[in-house]
């Protein structure tokens, strides 16, 4: 079902938690859909010095969150903004088709955090919430019996 990379990031997620000195916070998804991704960044001189996430969701949601933090840590904001949900999924050697829509929102959460940073221009951050962008998809775990 999942690639080895997805399972690795799911079982050993990188950069979990929150940042005391976060100056950009983004959150997407909603509990009704079963996925919420919360990303905090600490930006210094246009670079993402630190990034942490907290995610409520399935293995794909957790793995994409973990992967996006690894991909952008130390990168400039401009570089981070070029990352899309699709490139995150590709970095994980793909996701099951059904998960591409419903659980692949980590880049959106990151972009929300960057937007939040830019809006606050380094002053105290408040959460920017993206809307639930999920359209179709399913995450069926109850076997059809």
């Amino acid at each position, binding site marked *: 079902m999942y690639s080895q990379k997805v399972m690795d990031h799911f079982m050993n997620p990188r950069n979990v938690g929150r940042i005391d000195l976060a100056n950009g916070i983004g959150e997407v998804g909603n509990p009704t*859909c*079963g996925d919420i991704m919360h990303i905090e960044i600490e930006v210094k001189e246009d670079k993402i010095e630190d990034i942490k996430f907290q995610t409520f969701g399935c293995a794909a949601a957790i793995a994409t969150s973990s992967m996006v933090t690894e991909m952008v840590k130390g990168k400039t904001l401009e570089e981070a903004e070029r990352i899309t949900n699709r490139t995150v999924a590709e970095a994980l050697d793909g996701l099951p088709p*059904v998960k591409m829509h419903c659980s692949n929102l980590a880049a959106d959460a990151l972009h929300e955090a960057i937007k939040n940073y830019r809006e606050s221009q380094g002053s105290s951050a408040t959460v920017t919430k993206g809307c639930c962008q999920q359209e179709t998809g*399913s995450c069926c*775990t*109850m076997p059809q*019996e």
Partner: protein
Amino acid sequence: MKAVYMDHSATTPVDPQVFNAMIPYYTDIYGNSSSVHFQGQKAHRALEQAREQVAALIGASPGEIIFTAGGTEADNQAIITFMTHEHQKKGKHIITSAIEHHAVLHTCEFLAKQGFELTVLPVNSYGTIEPDALRAALRPDTALVSIMHANNEIGTIEDIKTLAAISHEVGAAFHTDAVQTVGKIPVNVKELGVDLLSASGHKLYGPKGIGILFVKKGVRISSYLHGGAHERNLRAGTVNVPGAVGFGKAAELAQQRIPQTTAHLKDLSSHLTSGILNGISNSRLTGHPEDRLPGSVSVVFDYVEGESILLMLDSYGIMASSGSACTSGSLDPSHVLLAIGLPHETAHGSLRLTMGKDNTREDVDYVLEKLPPIIKNLRLMSPLGQ
């Protein structure tokens, strides 16, 4: 790696005694049970013996049992072909419940699209169908009521005897999907008072691909698959004799084992349930606390998502299920968990552990050792409940 299978409501392993009983019907006694020659007649006798064994398990006459390819086919045949005949006499109205298996729910919805009228009964927070809700929904033109004997996700056992009696008062027939109960708890079609009942072989240590439809004498259904005149002209297609023999043997073994297995499973379930509820905060049992399948423990955990729990458990060799998100085209969690009134976010955090005869106290202790830290770790990762 240690393997602990707690997904018996999904399927069960074939009992070695069942498998051994089936083998000759693949290799030596391979005749078509409808053939005249001695090979066919041997197969025919085995088929009829299997029919007797299954009939005995549910208190039916052998002539009231049709072998099908499984529970889903039996549900489809019962509902669709019964309504095809009965709408001309009684009416076009069908009643079912919101927590049915999709084999019943989608079949009823299919008929509704064809012009039949459908009422879907709500359930209370335990997943129980209230007799008064059925009484209120019954109409003079209600031809059929289809309500499951026990729910596959939350384990609640319905009061079929009462519900069938209420339906009969206004002349409606009663079908029950007993896939989760036959072989697990005593099921007697006469005591329940049902007209049609579906069951499946692979839930009681029999093979997959075989099921039965009980049709009470005098109740009119017809063939759902069109073709040869097998099964008294009620189920076309060469009969799966090895499968039927397996189902028959499994039924015979289940009948002997039910009292002992029930006591064993009740003990394990109570140990597992109290261990989970006491050991993990913000956890709740779903389904009825007493009137439930003996081996079924279904729980919900706040702030975590079910698939993540399943994969973490799987990494320790523990196999379970969840109703965390629903079937294709939808982002909703299980229709059953929503029907009992759980909010979406809670329903996403569901876990179903269904035990079988071979599970041990050691298995339960192993789950109770692994599960709490899994939930704790996932909660640390979750932005909810902080």
